[in-house]
């Protein structure tokens, strides 16, 4: 019983949404789902945020290694909650935007979150280089093809390609690297993308069917509680 109802919910909701596509008056259902999802997600966050606080609190309480950093996390978290829930520094009143210019939340975002996330993202520049040096090697035919394609695009999307092959005659202009890069993007790359997209499309349908039919239901948890 405890397991039957959820399976029934999944099956009904799934089937209705699949069919809604074919019935114009029902097409709003899909949009309503995003609203549902957003509201449920807020409640889920009470569990997530609770977990965050619990994990770090236990670390501090038991004085586990590096517990000082957990203090930092907890302080940061509560500080943001306080400034956001009471809309400190921003326009007053309940309708004012919480992320308006001048609000504490926005200030923290601009001076702390933005540089941190940009820098984390930017580390990729270094990882790309180390991966190029170590991993992108012509180990076999497939890897060689990958390398050549990468090379053509790399050169073609920078002025380097033009410098290297700009002298090629106009009648053979396809062999100028920038043109070659456009061709690689538009033809073999497109073909590869399409086969991936078609495969993914079919894979999603089959997986969704398995979920809707209740064949795959581990996400619904153990039987005994």
């Amino acid at each position, binding site marked *: 019983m405890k397991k039957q109802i959820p399976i029934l919910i999944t099956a009904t909701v799934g089937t209705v949404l699949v069919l809604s596509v074919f019935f114009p008056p029902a097409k709003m259902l899909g949009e309503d789902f995003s609203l549902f999802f957003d509201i449920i997600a807020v409640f889920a966050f009470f569990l997530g945020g609770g977990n965050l606080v619990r994990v770090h609190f236990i670390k501090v309480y038991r004085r586990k290694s590096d517990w000082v950093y957990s203090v930092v996390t907890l302080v940061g978290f509560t500080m943001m909650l306080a400034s956001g829930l009471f809309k400190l520094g921003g326009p007053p009143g309940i309708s004012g935007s919480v992320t308006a210019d001048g609000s504490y939340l926005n200030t923290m975002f601009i001076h702390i979150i933005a540089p*941190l*996330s940009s820098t984390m993202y930017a580390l990729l520049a270094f990882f790309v280089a180390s991966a190029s040096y170590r991993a992108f090697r012509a180990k076999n035919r497939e890897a060689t093809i990958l390398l050549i394609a990468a090379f053509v695009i790399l050169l073609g999307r920078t002025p380097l390609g033009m410098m290297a092959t700009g002298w090629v005659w106009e009648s053979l202009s396809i062999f100028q690297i920038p043109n070659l890069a456009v061709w690689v993007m538009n033809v073999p790359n497109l073909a590869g993308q399409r086969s*991936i997209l078609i495969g993914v499309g079919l894979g999603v*349908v*089959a997986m*969704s069917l398995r979920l809707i039919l209740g064949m*795959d239901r*581990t996400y619904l948890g153990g039987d*005994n509680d």
Partner: protein
Amino acid sequence: MLNRVLLLCLALVWTVSVSVTAQDVAEGGIDTLSLPLPAPAQNVVAANHVYDDGEVIDVNWDKSPDDPENILGYIVYRAETDGAFDSIRTLLPGETFFSDDNVEDEIPYKYQIGVIGENGVSLSGESELAVATWELFNFGMWNTFLWMFVFCGSVIGFIISAKSGRKLYIRKIGGLEALEEAVGRATEMGRPILFIPGILDMDDVQTLAAITILGKVARVVADYDSKIRMPVSRSLVLTAARETIKESYTSAGRPDGYNEDMVQYVTDEQFGYVAAVNGIMVREKPATCLYLGAFFAESLILAETGNSIGAIQIAGTARPGQLPFFVAACDYTLIGEELFAASAYLSEDPKQLGSLKGQDVGKVIAMFGLLVGTAAMTLSVAWQVPATQWILDLMNNLFTTN
């Protein structure tokens, strides 16, 4: 150039003033313009847009004979039965079609097309009244419905046939074969297995796929009595992952081995999550890292950090942009469809394997469409074989959405 801009400005002033007084002009105030105007558009036809929710009226017209040299564009005017005309959209020269999707259903509208010339706007005749009505079933999507029916039918068909005991052959998928070995290695080394389900929430199909795979992986982990570590970036994924792992431990007969702290929420922020996962990797040194789900820029940060600690890495995503990094830096990569097939493959449940067979039917249909379509096109366009034209039309009808 300057002249053109000036003329355009002039035309715009005209547009505004004319749109206010459109009705008067149409009814006889023609003499107010002494300069020659472009020839008006003709045959303005407004009709309900079929197979929708009653929200769209399609307007078609014939081009002005002065299009494109002597005109600057078209203006679409709309009025209710007895109301005045309002301009609702300006279009570029060459356009002969407009979908008005800002109508109330059950209210009749009439339309008029203005041609903007350098000296003003000339108006067409009014269209008949049209009403946007809704239809119950979208017959425009008959081909989608057909293929959906065939495809889902074959998936279910194979599932039923597998249930009745028929043996189904599925080829080996390298990355999935390696999974058990990777878990085994982590057990031997006494180090945890890191499972990263991507950074999107439960409303993404790749995350769903990751959760279904997690069920199978956690089962192996439970069997081996290994440790799983799963930081997540979404609260709903936290809940779903906990349920999944718990179920796997229960079905492995070791419910006591399950511990809520196996799954930990970090933060919703993409790179905050990545920073924390990186930290976990270098400090706890997992022996095996699994990245399955929707990944964005973090794919390479994770895979390279995992590489630097010498972990076995298996990745899977449906995003073509991130696949090359996983292919380069990980030991095995599940490409696109393989990610969605993984849980069925790992379950070794004949019914679920049957659904993979159904997927192949879908591919056969797609390949058939490609083959026949391209052949027909080559014959009819390149070699002008007339008989193949209808095949080409048929294929286009079968594979075009409306």
